[in-house]
């Protein structure tokens, strides 16, 4: 796994010292709130409804047991005993005191973590497929490239004050689990005709109040050009992106207003100027960074394990876990295990300090000390022996983390919503909890099959509702919460933006409305194998609309 080098260590320590002094100056009255706010935001510290919130970066969602244990320690010592994993593979603490944040950042620096560029109009934490380095369908591990992008974008002086925030996602597999087409830059690893690695490049995807699917600007960008081309995109955006209106400032608006062909020409022209300069990636440097992500030594083992099969036959909960929470591994006899952070009726993405400690232990015991956070707010142990599954499952059961619901209707993405967030217009988490309770029976959710529900508590769409198979957007109408439903969204390699199905529903009505949609799907699907999204794409919205509103 990647280890910080001396340079990283130096600059994170320096940044922590700097922030410590900024907090001191704020408390001493040398800085006003107006002066201090941008500084704290650059270090991931927000002010929300009840308290400050600290967002800690987990680069490309990868961490180890020691780091997870540190997050548990911070939750226990400085917060209220829990943390919240986010849709950008980060973790948020909801109750830190301003005066404690320098100490928290010092503790994070001890395990090579920080909160830099988790906020502000800069290039944010680069996200990646959570099964990176393990998935059977992967062309190559995308994380070395995510790391190269991280090094290039960290405190990049030219790109620290962009028109708006900028998000990059990368996937190494043809099946996109990193939602790359709804990012400012989306990168999909591909092999060229000569067998060399390169990238399909998408630009201008994004959610928020103006959702857009990214446009393809390159079918194949050679590996060596990754940074020069990214820099060219950022330069064009930095120069032409709108700064007059923050709602029109993301690169997606620039792509839309300029037109793809003209913007592509601008990017290519900029790229030609710099492609043979300092940003050209030397092969030996890529291979050096790749070595940091070298997979653990995994022995090829039998795929079928008699004990696992026997347990599946005798224990329905284990069978359900095995059916839904495993992802095919590139080394036979191994698997990637999703630890669901979506207990039935629970809060999506929340983990207690004790659970974080347990996950650290389990990673060390069963998974070569590797942990991933998924953008779907779950925790992954990427390299687990299939033979270890019964023992691992038993440990998860004891600690309340054994729900076998990955990818099912109760595996809901939800933003923090109005229970925490100062921007929210309605609550998200309670709706997720009620849907989870309604559909949480093991038979019911297995019968429904793959169905991604995503809930946002405001138009900024942190809960990715636009790309939910069923999306729910919480708004305020005449002082009451009400929820708008979209159908047919998707964030994989066939991304689509969901369509609003009709008028919204009150908080009391919304779960019944979801049930009507689910029952309509169950009645119309051609076979159990036809998922909700496939059925919706085949038959369109009419029967769903009819079920919700009656004949128009």
């Amino acid at each position, binding site marked *: 796994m990647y280890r910080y080098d001396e340079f990283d260590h130096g600059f994170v320590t320096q940044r922590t010292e700097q922030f410590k002094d900024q907090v001191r100056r704020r*408390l001493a009255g040398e800085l006003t709130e107006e002066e201090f706010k941008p500084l704290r935001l650059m270090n991931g510290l927000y002010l929300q*409804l*009840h308290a400050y919130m600290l967002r800690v970066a987990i680069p490309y969602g990868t961490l180890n047991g020691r780091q997870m244990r540190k997050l548990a320690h911070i939750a226990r010592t400085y917060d*209220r005993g829990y943390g919240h994993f986010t849709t950008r593979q980060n973790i948020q603490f909801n109750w830190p*005191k*301003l005066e404690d944040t320098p100490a928290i950042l010092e503790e994070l620096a001890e395990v090579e973590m920080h909160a830099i560029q988790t906020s502000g109009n800069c290039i944010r934490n680069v996200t990646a497929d959570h099964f990176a380095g393990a998935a059977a369908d992967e062309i190559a591990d995308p994380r070395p490239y995510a790391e190269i992008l991280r090094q290039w974008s960290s405190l990049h002086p030219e790109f620290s004050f962009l028109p708006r925030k900028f998000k990059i996602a990368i996937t190494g597999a043809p099946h996109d689990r990193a939602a790359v087409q709804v990012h400012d830059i989306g990168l999909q690893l591909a092999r060229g005709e000569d067998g060399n690695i390169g990238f399909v490049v998408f630009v201008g995807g994004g959610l928020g109040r103006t959702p857009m699917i990214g446009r393809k600007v390159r079918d194949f960008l050679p590996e060596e050009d990754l940074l020069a081309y990214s820099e060219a995109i950022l330069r064009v955006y930095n120069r032409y992106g709108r700064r007059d209106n923050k709602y029109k400032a993301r690169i997606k608006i620039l792509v839309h207003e300029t037109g793809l062909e003209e913007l592509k020409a601008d990017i290519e022209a900029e790229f030609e100027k710099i492609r043979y300069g300092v940003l050209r990636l030397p092969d030996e440097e890529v291979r050096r960074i790749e070595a940091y992500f070298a997979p653990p030594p995994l022995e090829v083992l039998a795929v079928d394990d008699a004990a696992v099969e026997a347990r599946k036959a005798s224990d329905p909960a284990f069978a359900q876990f095995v059916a839904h929470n495993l992802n095919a591994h590139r080394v036979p006899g191994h698997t990637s295990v999703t630890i669901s952070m979506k207990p039935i009726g629970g809060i999506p993405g929340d983990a207690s300090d004790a659970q974080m400690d347990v996950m650290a232990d389990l990673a060390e015991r069963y998974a070569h000390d590797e942990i991933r956070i998924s953008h779907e707010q779950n925790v992954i142990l990427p390299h687990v022996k299939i033979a270890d599954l019964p023992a691992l499952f038993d440990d998860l059961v004891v600690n309340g983390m054994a729900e076998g619901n990955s990818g099912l209707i109760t595996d809901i993405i939800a933003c923090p919503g*109005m229970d925490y967030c100062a921007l929210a217009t309605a609550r998200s988490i*309670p709706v997720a*909890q009620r849907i989870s309770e309604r559909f949480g029976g093991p038979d019911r959710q297995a019968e429904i099959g793959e169905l991604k529900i995503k809930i946002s508590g405001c138009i900024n769409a942190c809960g990715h509702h636009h790309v939910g198979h069923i999306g729910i957007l919480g708004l305020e109408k005449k002082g*009451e919460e009400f929820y708008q439903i979209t159908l047919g969204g998707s964030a994989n390699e066939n991304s689509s933006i969901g369509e609003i199905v009709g008028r919204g529903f009150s908080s009391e009505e919304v779960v019944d409305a979801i049930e009507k949609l689910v029952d309509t799907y169950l009645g119309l699907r051609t076979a159990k194998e036809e998922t909700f999204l496939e059925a919706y794409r085949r038959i369109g919205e009419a029967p769903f609309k009819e079920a919700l509103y009656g004949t128009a």
Partner: protein
Amino acid sequence: MKVVTANRLLDGEVVWQGADGAWVELLSLAHVLEGKDEVAKALELAAQSIADREVVEAYAMDVTQDEGRIVPVRLREMIRAAGPTTHPELGKQARVSAV
């Protein structure tokens, strides 16, 4: 009918302006303001408090009174006054006298 609210600088705790201009941690202890002049005067006091580094982001919020109890008009302010609805053990609602 309004009260003035803010977050405390040091720990972000939600506070309201009390009768003597001092910040209080419970909405029930807030000073209810009637009319534009009272609100303007309260916001002036709050501005001074911001300058003195006691609180940040002060503003006036709408309330009603129900049998002497101060009740926020907007759900957002109800949640600020109580704590996350998803965590009844956290925030002001965990204190017996809060809600």
